């Protein structure tokens, strides 16, 4: 009965050594995940900007707005874990009600853009784009750019 013992303590040691590493990795995963969502919104907002500038035909405007609406809705879950880091200001979790309401508003406004574009074309949707894309007003408060 001497042999399993060293093996067991080896395993325990491995677990002890792993745990701080893996919890740090988890935090990084949480940050990476919400950044994937933000970067998606960035690509889609950029595509919408190109359409507004008439560089690109408007046929898919509603679809871009729809992706924004879907993605903004996913952001809420992504920011729920209170993991400071990345470019997120910690005050975001202290002001969670305000922060999550802003995400709800973005979801609603972009869904409305998609609807307006489908019903009335660009003429109906374009005037609402600036007020719908509230990206900067949230970033001003809750994001700390580290470029």
């Amino acid at each position: 009965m001497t042999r399993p013992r060293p093996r067991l303590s080896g395993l325990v040691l491995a677990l002890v050594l792993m745990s701080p590493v893996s919890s740090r990795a988890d935090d990084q995963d949480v940050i990476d995940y919400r950044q994937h969502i933000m970067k998606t919104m960035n690509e889609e907002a950029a595509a919408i900007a190109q359409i507004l500038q008439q560089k690109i035909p408007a046929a898919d405007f509603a679809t871009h707005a729809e992706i924004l609406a879907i993605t903004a809705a996913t952001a809420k879950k992504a920011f729920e874990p209170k993991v400071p880091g990345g470019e997120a200001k910690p005050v975001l979790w202290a002001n969670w009600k305000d922060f999550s309401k802003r995400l709800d508003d973005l979801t609603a406004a972009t869904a409305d853009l998609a609807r307006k574009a489908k019903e009335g074309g660009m003429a109906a949707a374009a005037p609402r784009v600036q007020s719908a894309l509230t990206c900067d007003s949230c970033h001003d408060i809750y994001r700390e750019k580290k470029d």
Partner: protein
Amino acid sequence: MSPVTRMYGVVAMVTALIASNAIAADDKEIIDYREHIMKTLNEQSAALGMMLSMAVPDDNAIAHMEAIALAAKMAPKAFEPKVQGGQSKPEVWTNWDDFSKRMDDFAKKTDEMVRVAKTKGAATAMGNIIEYLPCKSCHDVYRDESKK
């Protein structure tokens, strides 16, 4: 600068640029646009991948699949203008029939992924993810990653 901030100043800029560089600018816009769609696909696939490896909870899985399916649907049209550059190989346009067929298949497969996720659960769809997302098989033929 965020896309939104960029939008504010853009009218003046565009007017100033139009005179001499209109054609070059347009080509760049077309390349940028298809790359925005590809990068959307990339971020959303990465998000799904994190769920597949159980790095984050999968509550949003269906939403990510929906975003991928919508982006996939827009992709073929973004490549229609025959504008070489970016990481696109010239074969995109010389083999257009094959390329656009792959794009159509991609859109169909991602629709199927959403349908399966909604009817049989996200986990079932995730089990087939490689099948639904033929990103690499297209890139192997039509994308040159050494560019840029």
